[in-house]
């Protein structure tokens, strides 16, 4: 990206303006969720659109042995693949560090919120538990993959129904009516800082120009359940609390889309 474009974004931001005329705390339109985009093959699936950014997520259920230190709990696994289809900047190959960070932040938002009762994923203590494999793919990456991926994962989980289990073996052809035991939806919002100002839902260019970002996931009771700071610049305590307030407000809007 040209340094002059970065400077332009920075100059605008200092005046509280953005190159696409949005307000600093405004998401792109549309913000939409479509369920069951891969309903034949995935137990749960969804497509999330935020402006030009499009992300799909799918849930496959597997059965396996539990971790020895948690014999009565199932688990989840989150994987993000930055498809070269979705941006000229992404290349094939092993997962990049960006993809790994994305997946880990989405994973933590779900896992640490205890939105899924892992004990309910236990089939036989110490022997057999459900594992929920959540795979997330951007189809068009135009900024703010953090919020889009997190939202897509939640939507896919909400859409999912367990397959039938026959003698501890999954029959993928038959699906039950049992949903994933989701207590609530832990929605997250990423706030970016540039030139002392805060804004949400960056475009790809804005993302490259920012000084710092903070992703915060909230439970339905507005408790914080996961955080991740990124970017080069440090944040003060005051800034952090401002960011949290903004993120909480925006997650309430996002939650309505699910």
């Amino acid at each position, binding site marked *: 990206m040209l340094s002059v474009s970065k400077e332009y974004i920075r100059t605008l931001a200092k005046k509280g303006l953005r190159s696409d005329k949005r307000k600093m705390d405004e998401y792109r339109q549309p913000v939409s969720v479509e369920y069951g985009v891969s309903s034949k*093959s*995935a137990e749960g699936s969804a497509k999330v659109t935020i402006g030009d950014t*499009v992300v799909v997520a799918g849930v496959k259920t597997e059965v396996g042995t539990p971790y020895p230190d948690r014999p009565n709990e199932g688990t989840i696994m989150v994987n993000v693949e930055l498809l070269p289809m979705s941006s000229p900047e992404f290349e094939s190959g092993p997962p990049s560090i960006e993809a790994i960070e994305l997946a880990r932040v989405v994973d933590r938002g779900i896992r640490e919120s205890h939105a899924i009762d892992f004990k309910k994923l236990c089939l036989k203590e110490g022997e057999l538990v459900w594992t929920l494999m959540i795979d997330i793919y951007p189809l068009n990456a135009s900024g703010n993959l953090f919020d889009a991926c997190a939202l897509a994962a939640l939507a896919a989980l909400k859409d999912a129904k367990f397959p039938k289990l026959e003698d501890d073996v999954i029959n993928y052809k038959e699906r039950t009516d049992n949903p994933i035991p989701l207590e609530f939806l832990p929605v997250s919002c990423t706030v970016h800082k540039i030139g002392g100002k805060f804004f949400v839902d960056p475009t790809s260019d804005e993302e490259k120009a920012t000084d710092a970002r903070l992703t915060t996931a909230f439970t339905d009771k507005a408790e914080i359940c996961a955080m991740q700071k990124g970017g080069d610049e440090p944040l003060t305590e005051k800034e952090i609390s401002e960011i949290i307030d903004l993120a909480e407000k925006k997650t309430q809007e996002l939650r309505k889309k699910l």
Partner: protein
Amino acid sequence: MSYKREDRKESELRPMKAKVGVVKNAVGSAMFQIGKTIAMAAVYGPRELHPRFMQKPDTGILRCHYNMMAFSGSGDRVRPGPSRRSKEIGLVTTKALEPALDLREFPKTVVDVFIELLQTDAGTRCAGICAASMALADAGLNMKDLVCAVSGGVVGDTPVADLDYNEEAYEGGSVDIPVAVMPRTGKVTLLQLDGTVSKEKFKEALKLAKEGCNQIYDVQKKALKGKYKEE
């Protein structure tokens, strides 16, 4: 073993949907759905090719990549990353599309086509080729024709077009023959066969596949024109 289709005629393809311009960042893109199989394709390029020894001084080259999303399989989760199967399909897809494409205007470059399967119910490589060919046209590259692809086959001893997953797995035996055609000349650019079949039955199945390709041709053209009607 005799086999009779219940929901459609032997020569009938599953319902199709097609759309171009589905990936904004790409130079060209398309979605092609046949039955429950959904393929998307995005074109990037012509762009500089690395490593340089692969560059061709007189023309650009085409490179197709095929990938099934982890949740797109009929059974277990598909492990992410390239497999021997996906690499081979990428290769035969490239070979199926190359004859229709003219990249002499862009020497030393590469055109990358990324094909992703969102949901699968057999016929994925053919759906991928259909989507890819539309995406290349959407990218505005010089083409002699579109490329259309569908499976012909023999289920039990009945020749059919466009096998679905249950037919491919038919216990009375089945033969799967993926075929790609450039409809204007009728020339075949992809031909594979899995199973055992008599010469006569093979010819019948090939004929059904080629007829199917002509139907796909109409769907593709309509989708490409549709993009400009909307705007």
